[in-house]
């Protein structure tokens, strides 16, 4: 047995009082979970502590909280580890972020998480005609979606999503990972419609800031951000979806500029991301409007010589043989044929397999 002190965030919106911190010291073995510690504090000291839980085995996804500032399942975190990771030896537990608090450690999953999940039509839209018996699909295609199927809907990724923090409309990591679960499923009939919808929505797949927060937060290795990148890839390459959010234009411009120069040509990237992948993009009205809007920044950058005429007129470029080598890689791997993706979640590592 060891002693552990918890610092719990208490808040009852109905009381009209502000949130506050409360400390409780419990006795448990080091390998016991933070959830067990909270439940002991609730049983021994204060029955009014609000915490949602069920399976206590990291499978039901009910007990998502922030432990020492990071989202996790309370039942999935050992006390010794939590104490070690704390700032001052006291294990700090607070409700998850980006969702309103119902009471103490319980957040309103319905208000944010479940609404967003429903937004992506989270069921299979069966290909017609439905076969008399089962659908026969290649094994690999189902293995590919197992990563997004591992989601237990705990909301940890939603809690820390940095895009949602500034844009609450963002459909978010959990729902978009769920969307990939069906876009990656060969039995689903509406891949194009799903992707077109998520690409055109300003709060859809192109609203993700690629910050890795959801990958870090997920206790199940779902890597929602990687699923969002797969959605983008399939939308652009398999379905040719050109969206109104500049998502496709930005990617195409970036990829083709690196092919052309070997290095990133930032001067060309911005106009092409907005007005299309052509050297003439900078003269198009859609980019001109953007340039006028950004004038306060552009003018000061020129004034301070942060951006010089040299950079604009003579962008950096690899030497000829190296540029040829880069183009060779594009020709070998980025042609019209089938794309391969090596996903460690699916394939494992040599040392794990050996």
């Amino acid at each position, binding site marked *: 047995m060891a002693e552990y002190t918890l610092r719990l965030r208490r808040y009852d919106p109905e009381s009209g009082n502000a949130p506050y911190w409360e400390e409780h010291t419990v006795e448990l073995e080091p390998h016991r979970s933070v959830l067990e510690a909270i439940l002991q504090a609730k049983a021994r000291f204060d029955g009014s502590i609000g915490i949602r839980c069920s399976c206590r085995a990291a499978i039901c996804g009910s007990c998502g909280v922030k432990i020492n500032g990071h989202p996790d399942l309370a039942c999935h975190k050992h006390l010794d580890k939590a104490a070690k990771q704390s700032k001052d030896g006291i294990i700090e537990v607070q409700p998850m972020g980006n969702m309103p608090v119902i009471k103490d450690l319980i957040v309103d999953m319905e208000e944010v998480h479940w609404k967003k999940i429903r937004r992506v039509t989270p069921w299979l839209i069966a290909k017609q005609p439905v076969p008399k018996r089962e659908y026969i699909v290649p094994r690999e295609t189902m293995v590919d979606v197992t990563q997004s199927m591992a989601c237990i809907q705990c909301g940890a990724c939603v809690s820390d999503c940095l895009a949602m923090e500034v844009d609450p409309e963002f459909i978010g990591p959990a729902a978009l990972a769920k969307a990939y679960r069906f876009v990656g499923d060969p039995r689903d009939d509406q891949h194009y419609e799903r992707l077109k919808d998520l690409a055109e929505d300003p709060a859809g797949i192109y*609203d993700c*800031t690629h910050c890795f*927060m959801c990958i*870090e937060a997920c206790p199940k290795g779902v890597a929602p951000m990687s699923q969002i990148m797969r959605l983008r890839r399939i939308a652009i390459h398999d379905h040719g979806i050109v969206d109104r959010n500049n998502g496709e234009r930005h990617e195409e411009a970036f*990829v083709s500029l690196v092919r052309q120069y070997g290095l990133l040509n930032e001067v060309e990237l911005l106009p092409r991301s907005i007005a299309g992948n052509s050297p003439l993009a900078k003269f198009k009205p859609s980019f001109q409007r953007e340039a006028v809007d*950004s004038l306060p920044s552009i003018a000061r950058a020129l004034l*301070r010589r942060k951006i010089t005429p040299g*950079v604009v007129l003579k962008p950096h470029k690899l030497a000829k043989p190296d540029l040829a080598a880069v183009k060779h*890689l594009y020709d070998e*791997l980025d042609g019209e044929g089938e794309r391969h993706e090596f996903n460690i979640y699916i394939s494992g590592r040599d040392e794990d397999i050996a």
Partner: protein
Amino acid sequence: MKVAYWPGCVSRGFTPELHGSMARIAPLLDIDLVPLDRASCCGAGVIAEHNPELADALNARTFALAQRTEGTALMMNICSTCQGAQSECQERLDASAEYRSHINGTLADEGLSYEKGLTNKNFLWLLVEDFGLDELRNRVRRPLTNLHVGPFYGCYIVRPTDRLGIDDEHPRDSYLAQVIDSLGGTVVDYAGAHKCCGFPILTMNKEASLKQAGRHLGDAVDAGADCLVTPCPLCHLNLDLQQPLAERVVGRDLNMPVLHLPQLVGLALGIAPDQLGLQRHVVKPASVIDWTTSVVAEVDAAAASG
């Protein structure tokens, strides 16, 4: 120490003062930079989004070039985004001999091949783990006394922690604070240090992007920071270059200078601000530098001359 040096694209394009200041401070830290001038863009996550195999091949080529650079112990970069994008590719390449050999097959024409296990470190990591903070303290000529500095890491260099080798032994997500402290400055604790600057969605959702930048800058202002320091040139672009627009979106004056890591180190090593390109920022680092005397503002006179 001799390193295969990958400056990245942006440090030679829109933030030339980053590459310049790194080159300026390297001799003072006994770092011998051997530039990888044949290497390509890392893809910044965008090429990996487009086609992971292509990103892996481009970076395997860079890694192979680094491994062929004679007398170097490791590869060093000065861009959080390069670090993260390259680490992602390296993780895949190192995971499977079969996959590695498939990618190496595409490099065979050039006679290049990547061997598992390259060490690729951002300057920040090298400074703490290889150069050492004690040695850094010894070399400080102009301690940043009374300068309140907020660290801004950039997502790619702090997440995911397992891929980036962040653990109890290597708390790389606290290295900026350690460096600021070693240079004599005061670390400012504020909400945005490990958050996203918003740069990746600047062209997709400009308002959300600038709101991110504006919010973190505002948090730093409220926490009493004189400036921010970042190891990521893309963060620098959104936080410095776009700051006038971020101010407009969040509706407040920010006026927060954002320094590149080598610039902050260079100031403490005694280098003149103009040699570090500090005059080229959109937000004038007036709170950092007294331009009439070229010393860090508020530095205690005795400390500065002693």
